[in-house]
């Protein structure tokens, strides 16, 4: 494991991975013991291309100023850059209007924004007010960030918190959907692609049922928007949350998209800064979206960085990224299947799943798997991946998870497979 993996391209990938990797300076990093980095933890956070880092540096060294407040040149440049990023992101996800893009600090804040404003009781339209008798539906494969806000909202409002269970194959069990989503359901919030199982969910079926009963649908796109072409208009959902750092953008920024009508109906979330129309000590009125939901100085440089990230992803091409990951995932599943004692948690064929593979190794705790892999330079994540109910569902304490992105090479998958073999020998 001491020589650097020579980057090669899987037969079925449309990407020149070797060229892509040159855009990501950290991939040249040597770890302890001069081991090359094999980064298979992109579902946790992605690495950043030079284009994004340059955009950040350029912003801070040439255009830094606060936005929407200044009449001076730097202020206008910063505002144009910040609002320009909003345009780019709207186009990237097919949003009908730029005003429907709200910048948050991460996906978690975006999800909480919806849960909190529905729970606040301040909305004029009862459709956007949760109360006793109402029901909230999530799934058993949600990230904690799409569970806890709803549990808190239910506790505050007396609404009932329910969830769609999982099949043994790691897919949603839709057999009781008709009862679970019913006329009492106010909102259905579900993950598009699971961050632990890799499953890509059947949004269409759930949306169809939700529409029948008039429930809102919030999609957690944290793991789909970075990896596949996502078009909110085509999907037809009401709201979608995602996060910058998982899509080659900076930390400190996330996005909530929502249909204008829905965003208009929700009451304000955080108060202050530029989210107001006019403030008097006696009472205040609020700005239209998107500013209504952007209290205080926004993550300006981070929005600019995310805009550059979206430009980068578009230049490579989301279809090609998706096809590359599909090829890499098929290759990885094959390699892992071939190892005795390795069990895939989640769909074990490359269909309707993304490049995130959770697995267990018989008799060896994931923490130990991960640590010994790390000693070989292979960075994976171990634990419950902020989706503990999935572990409980499958009766395991934790998993080892390898997750891929546009820069993942087949050589890195080989390093993973060799690493797991070594783990087995080590604890054998």
């Amino acid at each position, binding site marked *: 494991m001491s020589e650097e993996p020579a980057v090669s391209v899987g037969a079925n990938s449309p990407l020149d991975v070797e060229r892509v990797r040159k855009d990501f300076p950290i991939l040249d990093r040597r770890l302890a013991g001069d081991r090359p980095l094999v980064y298979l933890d992109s579902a946790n956070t992605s690495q950043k291309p030079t284009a994004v880092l340059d955009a950040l540096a350029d912003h801070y060294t040439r255009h830094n100023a606060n936005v*929407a407040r*200044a*009449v001076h040149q730097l202020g*206008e440049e910063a*505002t*144009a850059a910040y609002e320009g990023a909003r345009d780019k992101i709207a186009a990237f996800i097919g949003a009908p209007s730029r005003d429907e893009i709200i910048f948050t600090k991460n996906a978690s804040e975006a999800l909480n924004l919806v849960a909190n404003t529905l729970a606040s009781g301040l909305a004029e339209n009862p459709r956007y007010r949760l109360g006793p008798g109402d029901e909230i539906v999530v799934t058993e494969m949600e990230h904690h960030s799409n569970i806890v806000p709803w549990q808190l909202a239910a506790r505050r409002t007396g609404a009932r918190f329910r969830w769609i269970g999982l099949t043994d194959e790691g897919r949603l069990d839709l057999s009781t959907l008709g009862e679970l989503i019913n006329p009492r359901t106010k909102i259905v919030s579900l993950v598009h692609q699971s961050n632990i199982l890799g499953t890509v969910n059947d949004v269409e079926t759930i949306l169809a049922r939700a529409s029948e009963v008039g429930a809102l649908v919030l999609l957690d796109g944290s793991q789909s928007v970075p990896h596949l072409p996502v078009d909110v208009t085509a999907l037809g959902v009401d709201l979608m949350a995602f996060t910058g750092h998982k899509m080659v953008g900076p930390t400190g920024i996330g996005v909530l998209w929502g249909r204008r009508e829905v965003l208009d109906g929700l009451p304000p979330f955080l108060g202050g800064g530029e989210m107001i*129309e*006019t403030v008097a000590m006696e009472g205040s009125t609020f*700005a*239209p979206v998107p500013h209504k939901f952007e209290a205080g100085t926004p993550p300006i440089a981070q929005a600019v960085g995310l805009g550059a990230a979206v430009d980068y992803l578009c230049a490579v091409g989301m279809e090609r990224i998706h096809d590359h990951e599909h090829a890499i995932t098929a290759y990885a599943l094959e390699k892992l299947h071939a190892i005795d004692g390795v069990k895939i948690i989640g769909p074990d064929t490359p269909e309707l799943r993304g490049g995130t593979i959770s697995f267990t190794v018989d008799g060896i705790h994931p923490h130990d798997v991960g640590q010994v892999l790390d000693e070989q330079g292979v960075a994976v994540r171990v634990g419950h991946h902020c989706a503990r109910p999935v572990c409980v569902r499958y009766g395991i304490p934790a998993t080892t998870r390898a997750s891929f992105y546009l820069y993942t090479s087949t050589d890195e998958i080989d390093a993973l497979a060799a690493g797991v073999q070594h783990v087995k020998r080590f604890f054998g």
Partner: protein
Amino acid sequence: MNDSLYQEIILDHYKHPHGRGLREPFDAEAHHVNPTCGDEITVRVALDGEKVVDVSYEGQGCSISQASASVLHELLTGSTITDAMAVEQSFVELMQGKGQIEPDEDVLGDGIAFAGVAKYPARVKCALLSWMAFKDATARAVGSPVVAAEEERR
């Protein structure tokens, strides 16, 4: 300071505003505020059938918002509602054109002096303030529920 947004015409209207002051009788009025800078304007319209017989206004604010109200008064007083709305439309387009639109002097008169303002996003609102108020006041005067409702939301 050649590329200044302060054209002589604008400074003239600012220093010597035309038709300033709130007059009676009037059919409807609208009060608009630019929350970012505190500019305020009240615009009154007096109609006689299809005709705009007076546009009177009072406000406080920057040279751009005040000069723009003066130009508005000059351009729209005496025209028909239809023509006034066409001028309004044209002024809004100019302001939202990011400096890429060539203004038509026949339609906009002194309003063409505001072409440079379109390059300053923070000031576009100032230039449009009285025009938006005029539009809303007129909508109220003719009793158009759609536009009036939009004003309520703002």
